């Protein structure tokens, strides 16, 4: 495969409710910053692809306005996935393999504050058997969390994930939820969807992020320490919760193996786990040991711009490689109820030949 690297990343600080700006106004400075940092001219970028979701805004073609932030004139080569931006990055990575273009812009945005996100996510479920009962996203995660606990885990283990995320987020100016609570503090609080408490659930965020990818020598020219994508893969599982083993993530395991997670040591992992128990399931599926720094940004539990949070994980890992804080990391994104679909991306400072 052709060597492709993340050469820049920009994100908007996640907030519970961005009151004044619409999606385009949120996105414009983020896209501009990613392009500026990449050192590649806006008009030189060969391909643009985005991830977003109509149902967040409650209007069809929500992604069309996003194009206004890019300056798509003269006309550009462009595509869009109705998926988290991490899958948009996958499409860009595939497109860069042709060899006729050398760079790509990937962006994603979500303004979940406009609607009732947990209820909106009910519309992802089987439209005949499940959606008519209206279980929301918290209930679907709660079913998985209970199965996880029944398999021999504890609510304290889950709370430990939240404690660590909130502490890590104190160093992250883009995070939305930070704090110094202890496990005991958190376990004293009420359930929101037993066995889930508020700390087990990612916040609802408005946010946006953008990444510029470049291939081969272009990446080397514009970036001192490119974060090379040495492996990327994604897999989907059966839709129904009843036919899956909810205590593991078979699709993450497969994607991780195919992306080569285990072939060399990992320094850092950014996992898109919107619920505490999911981080533990994902660590296991990816075979991450105790030496790996997991979600040093605070992860989705600290900032969760729906549709952009997966792409942000890739950006967070890449940024640590750019800065020299890490040599090799793994980023993960998820979609669908109870980790139905998962993407794994391995980034490595040593990737380019």
């Amino acid at each position, binding site marked *: 495969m052709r060597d492709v690297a993340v050469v820049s990343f920009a994100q908007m600080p996640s907030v519970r409710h961005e009151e004044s700006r619409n999606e385009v106004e949120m996105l414009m400075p983020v896209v501009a910053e990613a392009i500026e940092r990449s050192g590649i001219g806006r008009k030189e970028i060969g391909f643009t692809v985005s991830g977003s979701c109509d149902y967040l805004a409650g209007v069809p073609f929500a992604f069309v306005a996003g194009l206004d932030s890019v300056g798509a004139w003269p006309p550009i080569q462009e595509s869009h996935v109705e998926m988290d931006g991490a899958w948009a990055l996958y499409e860009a990575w595939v497109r860069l393999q042709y060899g006729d273009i050398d760079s790509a812009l990937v962006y994603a945005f979500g303004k979940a504050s406009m609607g009732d996100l947990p209820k909106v996510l009910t519309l992802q479920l089987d439209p*005949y058997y499940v959606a008519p*009962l*209206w279980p929301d996203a918290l209930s679907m995660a709660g079913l998985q969390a209970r199965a996880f606990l029944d398999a021999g885990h504890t609510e304290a283990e889950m709370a430990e994930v939240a404690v660590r995320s909130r502490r890590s987020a104190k160093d992250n100016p883009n995070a939305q939820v930070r704090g110094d609570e202890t496990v005991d503090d958190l376990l004293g609080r009420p*359930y929101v969807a037993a066995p889930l408490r508020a700390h087990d659930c990612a916040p609802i965020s408005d946010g946006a992020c953008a990444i510029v990818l470049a291939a081969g020598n272009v990446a080397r020219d514009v970036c001192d320490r490119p974060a090379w994508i040495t492996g990327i893969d994604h897999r989907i599982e059966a839709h129904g*919760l*009843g*036919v899956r083993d909810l205590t593991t993530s078979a699709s993450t395991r497969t994607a991780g193996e195919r992306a080569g997670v285990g072939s060399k040591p990992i320094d850092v992992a950014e996992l898109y786990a919107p619920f505490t128990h999911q981080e533990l399931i994902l660590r296991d599926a990816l075979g991450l040991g105790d030496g790996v720094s997991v979600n040093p940004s605070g992860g989705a539990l600290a900032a969760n711009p729906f549709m952009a949070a997966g792409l942000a994980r890739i950006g967070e890992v890449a940024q640590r490689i750019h800065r020299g804080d890490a040599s090799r990391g793994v980023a993960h994104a998820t979609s669908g109820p109870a980790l139905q679909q998962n993407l794994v991306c391995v980034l490595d400072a040593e990737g380019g030949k």
Partner: protein
Amino acid sequence: MAGDEVLVAPNILEYPYKRTVGPIIGRFLTGLRERRIEGIRATDGRVLCPPVEYDPANGESLTEDAFVPLADTGTVTTWTWVGRPREEHPLDHPFAFALIQLDGADTGMLHAVDAGERSEMRTGMRVRAHWRDEREGAITDICCFKPEQDA
């Protein structure tokens, strides 16, 4: 001068979608209307309930001759508590969503369990379908499951 406050207004998205269901889902829903619960036998021999049109393991089509009658009793395999029901929910007081493995089936079906208190819920508990009087051929023809004494 024009004010600087951004404007906000409610945007209502509502529609009464009508879904055609095809033969497999249609048969299951017809059964519910008649207070019958059926599963479907997958290619590996497992009985799936609710019955799906395509085998999740390998994508093969499942056909009507693979239907298997099931009891309206079963076991909770996992659950979560809904302390504040939404307007759309099957019950207007606190309840559990659960995966219920009906007797004779190998997989869980998502539905509501009316157990009164969260403390009454546990994995492995026995439940029985509680039917609506006015049934129309929908998953909501079972209004909920209710706890039963252990066998």
